[in-house]
């Protein structure tokens, strides 16, 4: 295995329990040859960063369905800076209106996958991004 294996944390921040999407993407990334850790439900930002640090994942993928993505991502970025793991790539999926995508990117998110994004697009984007870095 010469190609670096990509390690991903799929995290469900906050109180929302709709995890169909998070589970589906976990399976998809696994089948695409990545190593996937699923955080489980109801995680705080501190917990997510804690897991990302110990597992030294390449990617943190947040699944957010409630509409609170801007404030959640803001908090995540701040905490990542504090813990000095800002080198990890953040992707966001879930219920994300188009107008918020650029806001999320401004916060430092590498890619946004609104509900309905085909799995292969998500996989391709992650792989291309990891090749570049």
């Amino acid at each position, binding site marked *: *295995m010469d190609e670096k*294996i990509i*390690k991903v944390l799929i995290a469900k921040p906050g109180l929302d329990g709709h995890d169909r999407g998070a589970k589906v993407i976990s399976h998809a990334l*696994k089948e*695409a040859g990545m190593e*996937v850790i699923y955080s489980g439900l109801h995680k705080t930002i501190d917990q997510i960063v804690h*897991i990302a*640090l110990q597992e030294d994942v390449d990617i943190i993928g947040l699944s957010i369905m409630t509409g609170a993505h801007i404030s959640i991502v803001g908090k995540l970025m701040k905490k990542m800076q504090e813990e000095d793991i800002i080198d990890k790539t953040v992707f966001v999926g879930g219920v994300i209106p188009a107008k918020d995508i650029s806001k999320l990117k401004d916060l430092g998110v590498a890619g946004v996958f609104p509900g309905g994004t085909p799995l292969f697009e998500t996989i391709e984007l992650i792989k291309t991004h990891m090749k570049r870095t």
Partner: protein
Amino acid sequence: MDLAKKVLQGDEKSAARLISIMEDGGDEGYRLIPLLFPHTGKANIIGITGTPGAGKSTLIGKLAVIFANNGKKVGIIAVDPTSMKNHGALLGDRLRMKDAENTEGIFIRSMASRGYPGGIAKATAGTVYVLEALGKDIIMVETVGSGQTDTQIYSLCNTIITVLTPDYGDEVQLMKAGLLEIGDIVAINKSENTNAEDISTDVKAYINQRETKGRQIPVLTIQAKEGSGIEKLVDAINEHFVYLSKNIHGKELKKEKLKTLMLALLREELWGKALKTWTDNECFDGIVKKLQKGEIDPYTAVRAALEIKSL
């Protein structure tokens, strides 16, 4: 160099990174081990094996919290299988260790086996050194959980706990699984409405036939999820630790295990080298083609491959 220094200072992030470097196969990771090595040797390395679904992760989570509450620093390495088909892995053990995850001083690392045989990953042994250098007193290693084949854990750890569930079946199955051969402690994880007593009798009967050098192997009934029986298990672990350090047999065993561990790593290394040599080798490709055409049998093919000069 810096990374090793930071690990010794107790920096989790550097430890996590160093483990990744080893996992990704970079030699530079393993080259740092000698810097950490002088600071290791004191921790208790505990292996937890058992059938899939026996409750290994849940048990480790509970054990870790108890150890932490007793002032110990705990490291956990949870190994999950890598898919043969697509080389991906879902690392789900951590999710079963919720309490441990939220406890100060516990470091959890999930790890995919990445094709390494024996129930652990190639980097698992290295990770044990890293975690010890990080200051962990107790390091628990959870195997893939494929029963019989989880054998490498034996050479890596001081104490092996075999976790079984009562619904696992009868004595014959137990023996077949070979799980009991390596266990220093057997924990029967009792789920609701099951006959833990029956199985414990079966297990004890089987263990009595085993040569244990005068030591009685404890067979304990626990309820990992509810957390009952775990304190007794901790006692048994501590007793075994003392037994190993005081008993001459324990010291001999340690030597034997180190050699086995080295041989296993060596085998992997040789295999990796051989594969590299064979890849894109015309002679090798020719042999495979002959095999696939049915011109030669697999054994003959192997003999021919070994003849390839550059190996």
